[in-house]
């Protein structure tokens, strides 16, 4: 009879809701407990420094500035007339404009810029969201990263012009041999270890929005 069916459905609904009363909650109490963010989590932009010398990895190639869709990165890097290389004068990231897309990280060849997993950077005034090179480097000091630069002195790198298809292809072929071992398997070749970085970083070199 329809009435009994209705009552049964109502009681079943109550049971489903009621059985959750005994279960533990799935939420955590922020800020006392914090979630560990996955490694690839795209948080704020930071500038990475060399692990030994502590200097910035950035070579002022301006690739990230060109890759950013919201013009959040502003770099002032005039060319030194004698050495013909760019020298980094100022590097600002406006976190208010940043859309956390990660294109800058993909564009960089020198492991200089990264989206760290930090996400707590509120400020009381809009101007405080604009971070200069000092703050970017300071926040980036304890961010783990994989150094993908060639083992030469950093100063040599900037002379490489912006789009160099042959070199990047070669790098790609090198990198492809790594995943090639696991080609047949269904699993991705990467784990969530530091070998994670190179796959993503190398590929975009020739596809990113360089203008």
């Amino acid at each position, binding site marked *: 009879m329809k009435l009994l*069916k*209705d009552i*049964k*459905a*109502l009681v*079943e*609904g109550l049971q*489903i*809701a009621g059985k959750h009363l005994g279960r533990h909650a*799935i939420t955590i109490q922020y800020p006392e407990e914090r979630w560990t*963010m*996955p490694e*690839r*989590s*795209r948080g704020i932009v930071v500038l990475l420094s060399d692990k030994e010398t502590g200097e910035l990895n950035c070579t002022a190639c301006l690739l990230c500035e060109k*890759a*950013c*869709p919201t013009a959040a990165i502003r770099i002032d890097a005039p060319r030194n007339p004698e050495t013909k290389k760019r020298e980094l004068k100022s590097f600002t990231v406006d976190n208010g404009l940043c*859309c*956390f*897309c*990660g*294109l800058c990280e*993909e564009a960089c060849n020198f492991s200089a810029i990264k*989206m760290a997993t930090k996400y707590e950077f509120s400020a009381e005034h809009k101007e405080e969201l604009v971070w200069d090179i000092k703050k970017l480097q300071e926040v980036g000091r304890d961010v783990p990263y994989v150094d993908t630069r060639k083992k030469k002195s950093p100063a040599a790198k900037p002379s490489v012009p912006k*789009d160099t*298809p042959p070199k990047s*292809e070669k790098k*790609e072929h090198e990198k*492809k041999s790594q*995943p090639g071992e*696991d*080609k*047949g*398997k*269904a*699993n*991705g*070749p*990467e*784990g*969530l270890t530091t070998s*994670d970085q190179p*796959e*993503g970083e190398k*590929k*975009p*070199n*020739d*596809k*990113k*929005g*360089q*203008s």
Partner: protein
Amino acid sequence: MVELPTEEFVVNMGPQHPATHGVARLILTLDGEKIVKIEPVIGYLHRAIEKVCENRTYAQCIPIIDRFEYVTAMSCNYAFSLAAEKLAGIEVPERAEYLRVIMLELNRIASHLLFYGVTAMDIGAVTPFLYGLRERELIVDLFEMTCGQRLTYSYNRIGGVSRDIPKEFIPQTHEAIKIIGAKLSDYEGLLNENPIWLARTRGIGVLPKETAIAYGVSGPVLRASGVQYDIRRNDPYSIYDRFDFDIPVRYHGDCYDRYLLRLDEIRQSIRIITQALDGLPGGEIRAKVSPNFKPPPGEVYSRIENSRGEMGIYLVSDGTKKPLRVKARGSSYNHFEVLPQFGTNLLVADIVAIFATLDIIVPEIDR
């Protein structure tokens, strides 16, 4: 016997309202409780995405197009990449196609779970909202593990995907879809046979087949009105023709059918994901695309089956590295327009139910 004069009054279900998902505005003319006229007003969420894209390179457009319909951001990225790849004739590697399909279907499940929660909440039952979101967390965690973001992924690139999946992805995905498949029976037990739910959704908001086709309605709304049309079958893109899945169709066209259909679609998506995970090949994840990507001049319209309906990107290129025109077609625009057609036997509460089951997302309307 004196007839008391009554007059209609105009109520604004304004841009800020708990039941319109986002900033959509409806001007209702009420006669007592019955609705006499509905007038939808749009434009409150216009962000000029299409114009902004005209000044960005193709790769920079991807995060911008993400925001076009942020609940299913994977589909937005994918539609744009598909358009650019069609224009330039790029062939996408196998592994990338499989990964794209897995992500698209996971996104579809996440969107339908959100639909379930929000619809239940609009009709009054608040608890299913939390249950739907709890399951959606599993999927969103998978996305965060792979591409780093939980809502606006920017995962696809022209020619493939940006990053390969980490090694925890596959076991965790299997786990997630197993849990979601099991919880579906919980959701159905909570609402499907509930007499209050049936009274609120069965027979309400019937959309006849002809009206649906005339207004360009697509997706689950169309299929609930009896038209068996799914772009994945009728106009296949990517590698959907390799997978074995059904297209659920229902014939009443009321709110209840639209709700049931989306739950069925979750099951079909789970089937597709399982097949895709089993058949995932190795290989590259991105085709070689030049850094200054300049597709040949021309125009292309690429359309995909979003969880809401047909999502299309019409791309016009003039040979430079920035697109000449990007037009995004969202299905919610047509669904919002079809609201006045639902007949005059409605109460305010019915409009809320219809609005919820049409699964209208306002950024798609206003772009």
